[in-house]
């Protein structure tokens, strides 16, 4: 299958990225926007982890039994990115809660209307 579709992982990464982008741009609901942003973010995880994989390799925990390991460097970068991602998601959700308390809505259109022209 690598010969057939060598870029399958990259294409799915692009699809997920675009789906997330669409949710952020097209949807007015702020929770939906944040979920879309999270999908966009996970596609970046895939963008980093996929090229690090070696077919037939194993996880980079050294042992006498194995000689081929996948690349550990993207794992390090993405591991920390995930936890930073939840901190930023929480910050976004906190803003949503405050917006809801101030405007009584989490829909972008209604918030803009309340603000007037």
């Amino acid at each position, binding site marked *: *299958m*690598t010969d057939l579709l*060598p*870029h*399958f*992982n*990259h*294409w*799915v990464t692009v699809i*997920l*990225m*675009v789906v997330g982008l*669409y949710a952020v*741009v*097209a*949807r*007015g*609901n702020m*929770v*939906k926007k944040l*979920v*879309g942003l999270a*999908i966009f973010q*996970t596609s970046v*995880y*895939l963008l980093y982890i996929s*090229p*690090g*994989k*070696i*077919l*037939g*390799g194993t996880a*980079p*925990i*050294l042992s006498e039994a*194995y*000689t*081929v*390991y*996948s*690349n*550990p*460097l*993207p*794992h*390090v970068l993405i*591991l*920390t*990115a*995930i936890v*930073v991602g*939840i*901190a*930023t*998601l*929480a910050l976004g*959700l*906190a803003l949503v809660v405050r917006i*809801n308390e101030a405007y009584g809505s989490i829909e972008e259109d209604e918030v803009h209307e309340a603000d007037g022209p």
Partner: protein
Amino acid sequence: MTTVGSPEIELLLNAILLLLMVVAAIGVIRLRNLFAVVLLSGVYSFLMATLMVALDAVDVGMTEAAVGAGMSVVLLLSVLGLTRTREAPTRRRPIVPLIISVVVGIALVHGTMDLPPFGDPNAPAQRHVAPEYLARAQVETGAPNVVTAVLASYRGYDTLGEVAVIFTGGIGVLVLLAGLGRYTGLRTRPPGAPDPGPEPKPVPLMEETVVLRVAVKLLLPLILVFAMYVQFHGDFGPGGGFQAGVAAATAIILYGLIFGIPAARRVAPMRVVLFMIPLGVLIFAGTGVASLLLGGNYLDYSVLSSVPRSGQHLGILVVEFGVFVTVSSTMLGIFYAFASRPPRDGPEPS
């Protein structure tokens, strides 16, 4: 070169998980019931975690399972409880965003054509620094898990920065939702407003359910022991401070979900949580200062012991503990901040 597993099975598993993730992501976009959206995003994250394990990124898979499928679902659900669970129909036309997305997608797919094929051992990414790390990590730091060695030692600066970002994010949430000046109560009222009196007794929703109550009490010690195992075995197996921190926080969160927030706040008081959030960053940064004072470079743990290798190993354990302290308390503090918000009163706005 001995390889493990059959490449065909690996590719098949990879393809199935990727396709399921596309289905879940499109479902998230199309559904208007936000409750379903949040649960489906949890399913999506769990598929991502499984895929990460299939792609040999075991540490990443563990983190994504704890964070994406656990923590973020809890946060999103608590926000739905505070706001609303249905998305209003949009009045805007989706055609412009659709065109933008498709054009961006086509451009990116065009860009992937020049990338090396998936799983290629001779790709440039595999021939750069990765072989160096794999060859030297265990010799120099004594940690067989190369991910932990790179995370805590070789790229310690990065990780210190990431911990600082988590610290900042946590403080931001607490300032937005709780107001740090009145931290002990975690209640907000506008300045000058009359004191509303003692906090109303929250309705115990799930405490009455025997199955949940017994199951949680059985699970709690196991989750906490697992978190400690992940923490202190992280240099030999998958895991480390980030994963253990989130796992330990979810144990307390689970307790709070079933027995109510006041009960959870008696187990892990807010004062302790607020003390731990900066403490972890200070442990990490202080290890760097200690190595400076002992005559080494910042975050160069070799000088912490007479044998450089055991110094490295000691340094890794200490900074991973610092990561654990900040991550676990930040996750818990964020959860308290959301859970202590006054809930939506009255029926849901349509």
